[in-house]
């Protein structure tokens, strides 16, 4: 298991990368990572409280325990067994069953919200009004009105806000974006994303009365199911890569397999339309996992599978030696053509492996880096530009999709939505 020292070393290296890559310099949410490395000094310590100690909350705890300069000062959950289990993991943390009481705790810099979707907005707004910095899990909120309220409140707070879309911090996704910007696939003409599983998506429960509470993702009163809990990630990526939000969408959803009392769709199909004529085709199901999950960014010159981190070029690349040879002839050089080797063999569709986007897959999917960035931003006392836009675009997109399916009509981007 990697420790805090390793993570410190990793973040130091990342700061160098963040400082040197032209692309990363364009991504403002990476800027806190370029800050001076934190020390063990008390003045460098950021004190955080986390609400929601379920699966996601516990993953955050694991990352935070390794993030330099971070103290998990408080944990909050209204489900006692989860709270006790997480308190056992974090030495010295104070436990709360009421979020507002946690906000009143003196010396707390920021909060992480990893609760069911329907609670996000209330907690974000309360945290902002208590002057706290906020890290909110995706999806942003349960309704479009709530998304707007969070964006409006944030605008005046001067607080740090971050959304739990870890792909914004994934080196693989950054490389994918860099390749797209450099024209590796040409113009983006379609993004196809899917998230396929083959299980009932339930947490085991000891008592049936806990079902709605612990399996909140399956109930429409608390969540929009597949759209908010899974699709929001890929809609964030799509909006990010396209640099826009969808103008409208249509879709169908149903419960065709898991007829077990849930009232969110167990399969969804949504098509989003963007102003420039690009479409994002999204589907998610829970009754077949063969294709797993992927976001495919397509263009006339190639396809990027960003989750797998691979690029599939449509045409074979020109032989590097030949390019060099032409260059030498045109510029009057007499250079060796570095060419002879065992024969170049093309990728065949049936067993093509594509080209890896990054040499080594990062130690995490961006979640750990994003938490370090959050802590650094708090330390610097500077809001992270662009983050609320990312959160709102994806948050609203998935709610549009949900509405389109429920009302069986085309749903437009909410007019007048202001980020």
């Amino acid at each position, binding site marked *: 298991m990697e420790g805090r020292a390793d993570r410190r070393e990793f973040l130091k290296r990342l700061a160098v990368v963040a400082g040197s890559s032209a692309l990363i310099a364009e991504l403002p949410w990476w800027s806190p990572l370029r800050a001076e490395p934190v020390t063990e000094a008390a003045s460098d310590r950021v004190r955080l409280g986390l609400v929601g100690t379920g699966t996601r909350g516990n993953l955050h705890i694991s990352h935070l325990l390794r993030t330099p300069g971070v103290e998990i000062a408080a944990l909050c959950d209204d489900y006692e067994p989860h709270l006790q289990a997480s308190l056992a993991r974090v030495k010295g943390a104070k436990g709360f069953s009421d979020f507002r009481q946690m906000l009143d705790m003196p010396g707390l810099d920021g909060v992480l919200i990893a609760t069911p979707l329907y609670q996000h907005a209330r907690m974000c707004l309360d945290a902002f009004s208590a002057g706290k910095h906020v890290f909110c899990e995706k999806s942003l909120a349960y309704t479009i009105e709530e998304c707007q309220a969070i964006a409006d409140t944030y605008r005046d707070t001067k607080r740090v806000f971050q959304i739990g879309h870890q792909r914004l911090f994934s080196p693989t996704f950054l490389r994918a974006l860099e390749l797209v910007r450099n024209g590796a696939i040409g113009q983006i003409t379609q993004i196809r994303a899917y998230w396929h599983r083959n299980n009932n998506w339930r947490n085991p429960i000891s008592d049936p009365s806990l079902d709605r509470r612990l399996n909140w993702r399956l109930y429409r009163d608390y969540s929009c199911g597949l759209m908010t809990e899974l699709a929001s990630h890929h809609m964030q990526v799509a909006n990010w890569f396209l640099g826009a939000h969808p103008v409208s969408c249509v879709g169908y959803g149903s419960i065709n397999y898991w007829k077990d009392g849930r009232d969110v769709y167990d399969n969804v199909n949504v098509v989003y339309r963007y102003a420039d004529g690009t479409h994002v085709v999204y589907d998610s199901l829970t009754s077949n996992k063969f294709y797993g999950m992927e976001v495919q960014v397509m263009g006339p010159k190639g396809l990027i599978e960003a989750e797998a981190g691979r690029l599939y070029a449509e045409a074979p690349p020109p032989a590097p030696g*030949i390019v060099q040879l032409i260059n030498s002839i045109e510029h*009057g050089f007499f250079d060796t053509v570095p*060419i002879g080797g065992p024969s170049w063999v093309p990728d065949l569709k049936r067993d093509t492996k594509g080209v890896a986007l990054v040499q080594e897959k990062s130690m995490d999917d961006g979640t750990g880096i994003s938490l370090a960035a959050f802590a650094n931003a708090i330390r610097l006392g500077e809001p992270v530009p662009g983050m609320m836009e990312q959160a709102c675009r994806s948050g609203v997109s998935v709610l549009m999709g949900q509405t389109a399916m429920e009302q069986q009509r085309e749903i437009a981007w909410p007019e007048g939505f202001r980020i």
Partner: protein
Amino acid sequence: MNTRFSMVLVGVNTERAGALAQAAERELRACEQLMSRFDVESQVFDLNRRFAEEPVEPSAELWRILALCGDYWRRTGGAFDITLWPLNRLWRGQLSRGEEPTEAALQQALDRTGFHHLHFDETARTVRVERRGMSLDLGGFGKGYALERLADGLRVAGVERAFLSFGESSVTVLGSHPHGPAWPVGVSNIFPPHEPVHTFLLQDASLSTSGTAPYNAAGGPRFLGQIIHPRSGRPIKGYRTLSVASPSGIEAEVLSTALLITPEQDRADILSGFAVVSAVEIVYDSDAGRFAPKIAWKFGL
């Protein structure tokens, strides 16, 4: 031929170059029609399908090619052999599953290889094989053959300087580099940083490189480049390449493969029967996981 072809023409205007490129494409497609073992329309495909059942009469051109392959098979002491496909297929399949073939499977594949199992009826102009499961593979030979045909066509068209490359393993040049006395062609390190290990100066000549490589273009393990020893039936070990420069594209192709699997002490014998050639063998020794190229053998340099 399952690779890419590049052609650089010097001193030819764009319009003419376009026409020559189209002519080259037609020529290459004709070669595929003749020699591809994958194209169901090709002559070799038809031969492979029928020649264990009945004597097959190939076209005059294919007859000449097969006779030439027989000639090279004899002149290389059996090291150049166009009948190794069953072994190649066996190893490719097994290694992609991460396994070695069983002795029985290896023996079966070996039984289905060997140019001496091909019978030519000079009177009827027919070919047959005595064993089922045999299959000809003119992949390597085909590149050299196509390059010679293309080079001839360009000469006839009046092109004086040109650089032709098949997947970077087979190169034919016309004349010299416009800014020097020859075309300097470097044999690259198969490991990063891929710098040239040895540079051949080619003038109206061909260069062919055979060898094993750690990766294919996509970065995956490479099985297509396995070089199988015709007698043991096993892939040669380690990472090595052998490059041969020759006035003949076909002979460069034949010799690069044949010499690679021939022990060093027997190579001079083979070479004594060929026109002026030069050759370089590069062997990659592993030191703590890093592979460094070393020129292990040279000829005519």
